[in-house]
């Protein structure tokens, strides 16, 4: 059984069909890319998986259990988390606190425990702090733990966002354009980091990316969306030579010429 199954997902906005009958299966421990031209419905697909949009039709199964209709926080609790295309950090919090927020659903302190400053709560907090710091170390930005997130340079913000997502202790992490706005050297680093993360942390990774070099080099399986529909899937090799994909990217003319 696949870890995550999206079956026949359809999402309409008024007259616009953002996703139509999209079916995707994700195996545990893989790196999968979702690609497609602008406006193909990739982010809509992510938003359905993470609970921000409820699909009009279709089903989403995690470990065989439906997560359709759950709220984003419930889905995060079940082990699916994400980063955002346009980086959404908690700007006025420090980097360390940002990561600690990610621990939210793994902590249990309630109002009364907090007010009484119970021993259990203090210990839980200390553990959370240590873990957050370890995560910052892991993504290589421990030295800015006490900096305000909003004031960090772009590349570090991307890393911080990943550290924060890891704090939720996910099974699956969805990366929405993780290398957007990065220079070639940073992109190479990010590629290596994503692979290392998968290998070391037992993660399953799904990513949206426009940088084809990154996609082809990193992902083991690729799904291609165009105009809200899935037009192809396969290994990077298969996708590279798929005429439909080339057409979607380059237009009709390209296939006719070749």
């Amino acid at each position, binding site marked *: 059984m696949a870890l995550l199954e999206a079956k026949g997902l359809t999402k309409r906005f*008024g007259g616009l069909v953002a996703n139509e009958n999209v079916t995707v299966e994700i195996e545990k421990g893989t790196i999968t890319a979702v690609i497609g031209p602008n406006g193909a419905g990739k*982010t809509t697909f992510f*938003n359905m998986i993470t609970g*921000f*949009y409820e699909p009009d039709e279709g089903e989403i199964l995690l470990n065989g259990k439906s997560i359709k209709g759950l709220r984003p926080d419930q889905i995060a609790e079940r082990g699916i988390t994400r980063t*955002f295309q346009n980086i959404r950090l908690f700007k006025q919090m420090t980097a360390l606190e940002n990561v600690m927020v990610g621990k939210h659903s793994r902590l249990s302190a309630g109002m009364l425990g907090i007010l009484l400053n119970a021993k259990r709560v203090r210990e839980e907090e200390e553990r959370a702090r240590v873990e957050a710091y370890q995560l910052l170390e892991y993504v290589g930005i421990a030295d800015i733990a006490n900096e305000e997130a909003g004031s960090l340079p772009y590349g570090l913000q991307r890393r911080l966002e990943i550290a924060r997502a890891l704090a939720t202790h996910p099974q699956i992490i969805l990366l929405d354009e993780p290398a957007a706005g990065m220079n070639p050297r940073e992109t190479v680093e990010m590629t290596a980091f994503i692979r290392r993360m998968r290998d070391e942390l037992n993660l399953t990774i799904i990513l949206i990316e426009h940088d084809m070099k990154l996609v082809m080099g990193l992902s083991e399986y690729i799904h291609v969306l165009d105009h809200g529909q899935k037009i192809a899937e396969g290994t990077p090799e298969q996708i590279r030579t798929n005429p439909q994909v080339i057409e979607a990217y380059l237009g009709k003319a390209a296939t006719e010429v070749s």
Partner: protein
Amino acid sequence: MLSILPQVLIDGLTLGFMYAVVALGYTMVYGILEFINFAHGEIFMVGAFVGTEVLLIADSLGLLQEMNPFVAFLLSLLIAMILSGALGVGVERVAYRPLRNAPRLVALISAIGVSFLLQDLVRFTEAVARNEFYLNSPSLFPGFLEVGGFAQVPLKAVVVIVFAIVMMVVLTLFINKTKWGIAMRAVAQDPSTASLMTINVDKVIVLTFLIGSSLGGATGVLFAQNYGTIDPYIGFILGLKAFTAAVLGGIGNIRGAMVGGVLLGLLESLAGAYLGPLTHGAFGSEYKDVFAFSILILVLLLKPEGLFGEAVKEKV
């Protein structure tokens, strides 16, 4: 109980048309800036005071008796519209524009501040000028209109409704037919693309405040004619109700604001008249404001896009 129905309906329509025109001011600004101009009710109030002062001054100079009441009314309406329009533009320039890129709540806080500041400024002005803070407006249209033998419609109510309709028609024509109106709609749809199309977004925003505020001010004059007495606090509750009307119709939607206003006015009037008798006096007309606020809350919860708005989903 039915014998008062025509009167209740007329009251409701009069009130509703006033809500509708004020609601236009909220909805136009919201459509373009996604910002609740909390002080719009006070602009309405200032319009009421300006218009009434014009009439009172004309009266004290002995001019009012010699004027045709319609001429006097139009004159007060015009001056009120000019001054409240200018005030709206000034408020935007001083208190909102510097905050256009600030978090939305900061701009809202500034607007709340403007709202209270204007209330007291008007109170001070009147206190210095007349040693009172409320005004009694000279009544220009005291008569009644006999309709079909079963209802007496006060002339002033007819004036309110007719003028409100005229203003709404003119506004609709302006927005749909003129260059600036189309520019306004473009900015409301997509400010960055509009500015690429060489539309001056700042000018459009100023124009929006100008139109919305002068319509609000004009409604103030209608209000003063209809109810006779005004004070610096009339704008607050009426503004809230008009905002409710705008939400009810679908905020950002001009037609929605008109329909929402009239609907809310009617509902409120009916509630005020019949809530008491229907609950055997347990909940009387004192609950009519509760009724209006409940509508606001219910609409925001159940159909936040309003009657005519389109559902929008926050962009992730």
